């Protein structure tokens, strides 16, 4: 894994719904094996940006993944190309069991998944305990773990995480971010994480972009942004 490889290169990306655009031409990139954070307030266009990468919304501009354009591709084809997306609200298959959720995560993989499942249980032992249970009955934190496991089972090159801390108790959030750090070190995937919790996101990421009403107003190394007190106060609120 060469950390300097550009995994995802986005240029002049516009994205939106129906007649309107929510993202007005943004540029950013995600390096292989690195974590990139997309920060911003509610309504800044973070979720829409992730949806644009996965081909779920109206999109214009350039989205190149490993040098191949994703614009116009179907969502399921983008997933099969190696982009796993944990959507906002976690996207749990509520009616299905934990086991079936995990099997669906590995839908594009062929062959026996037992070893892969065991690898996920090492990160998330809770999932092993709850393996046969209905996923809709899991707690929010457990559902987030299941969502990340489901995404990793796709064996992605790029992992898109939409607000992994959303609606979770601080203790659970810390647990999940600790696991994400392990995943980052061991799996070698590029991660693009969208967060409202800026301090967490800056802590785990190498690079960060700050979105405001659909435009990037600031970008740079996460450590630099975290140090800039004025920026932190005015944009990140902590």
């Amino acid at each position, binding site marked *: 894994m060469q950390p300097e490889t550009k995994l995802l290169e986005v240029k002049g990306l516009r994205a939106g719904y129906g007649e309107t655009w929510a993202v007005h031409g943004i540029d950013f990139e995600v390096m292989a094996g690195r974590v990139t954070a997309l920060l911003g307030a509610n309504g800044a266009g973070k979720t829409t940006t992730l949806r644009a990468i996965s081909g779920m919304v109206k999109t214009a501009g350039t989205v190149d993944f490993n040098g191949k354009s994703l614009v116009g591709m179907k*969502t*399921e084809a983008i997933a*099969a190309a190696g982009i*796993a*997306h944990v959507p906002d609200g976690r996207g749990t*298959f509520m*009616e*299905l069991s934990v086991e079936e959720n995990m*099997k*669906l995560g590995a839908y594009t993989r062929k062959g026996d998944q037992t070893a892969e499942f065991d690898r996920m249980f090492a990160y998330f032992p809770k999932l092993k305990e709850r393996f046969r249970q209905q996923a809709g009955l899991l707690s929010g934190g457990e559902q987030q773990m299941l969502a990340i496991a489901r995404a990793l089972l796709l064996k992605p090159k790029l992992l898109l995480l939409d607000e992994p801390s959303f609606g979770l108790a601080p203790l659970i959030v810390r647990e999940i971010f600790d696991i994400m750090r392990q995943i980052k070190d061991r799996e070698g995937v590029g991660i693009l994480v969208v967060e409202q919790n800026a301090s967490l996101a800056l802590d785990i990421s190498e690079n960060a972009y700050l979105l405001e009403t659909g435009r990037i107003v600031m970008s740079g190394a996460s450590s630099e942004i975290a140090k800039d007190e004025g920026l932190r106060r005015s944009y990140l609120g902590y």
Partner: protein
Amino acid sequence: MDGVLHQVFSGIASGGIYASIALALVMIFTATHHVNFAQGEMAMFSTYIALTLIEAGVPYWGAFVITIVFAMVVGTIVQKILMEPLMNAPVLASVGVFIGLLFIFNSVAGWIFTYTLKPFPTPFGEGGPLLGGFFSRHELGSTAITVVVLFSVWAFFRFTSLGLAMRAAAFNPVSSRLVGVPVATMLALGWGLASGIGAIAGMMVAPIVFLDPNMMGGVLLYAFAGALLGGITNPLGAVLGGFLVGIIENLGGAYIVGTELKLSLALIIIVAVLTLKPAGLFGKVLASRV
């Protein structure tokens, strides 16, 4: 007592047919949240194809298989051409299309095959009653077929990865696409499967009621009553509901309302379930957060 038992067994036989159509309704309902009112007419049309093949000299079981394949193809095409563009359309648009399909299949069948009642052969022979006289040969055979079909469908959804992907696509299309499931294809396959199940039910009921373009009108009502009684969100419940409705229909028809008013039993069940227990006996009570 023998009479009652006879009615119960007859009820199980027709219940199997209602259960099959009820399952087809539930499959479409899970994916679209609408009831496909044309389910019965599509089955009736397929049954005419079977009769045409048999009259042309194709052996029964050959015609049986070809008809199922034909029904699955038609179901898939209907979904691709008519339902896919309506995926995000308002409820009434879909209901309109379902009712339109009902009339189209009914009228085209009448136009091509005429409205005269036609006898439809049974593959199980005309011989005397079996199992102590409670089951006719056709009742026994068709019950066996429906049970095998229902069991195979259950096993398909429960144990195969294609079945799992089809369930996932119906429950949660957004997440399904994100894990790489081609949702549109899965929904089309679901329609194909439902239509195939319907065709089997049509071929099993035709020897009893005779084949005509309005053959499935009553059957669809009983099946709908069964699906509601068992719970339209629960395939297993709908199947049990179908069998229950078959038994209720036969017992009620024989001892309470008489054969003329049998169909009203289906309507009574529908009204009773919707007012007293809308989720059905085994269905999930749906709650949504606002």
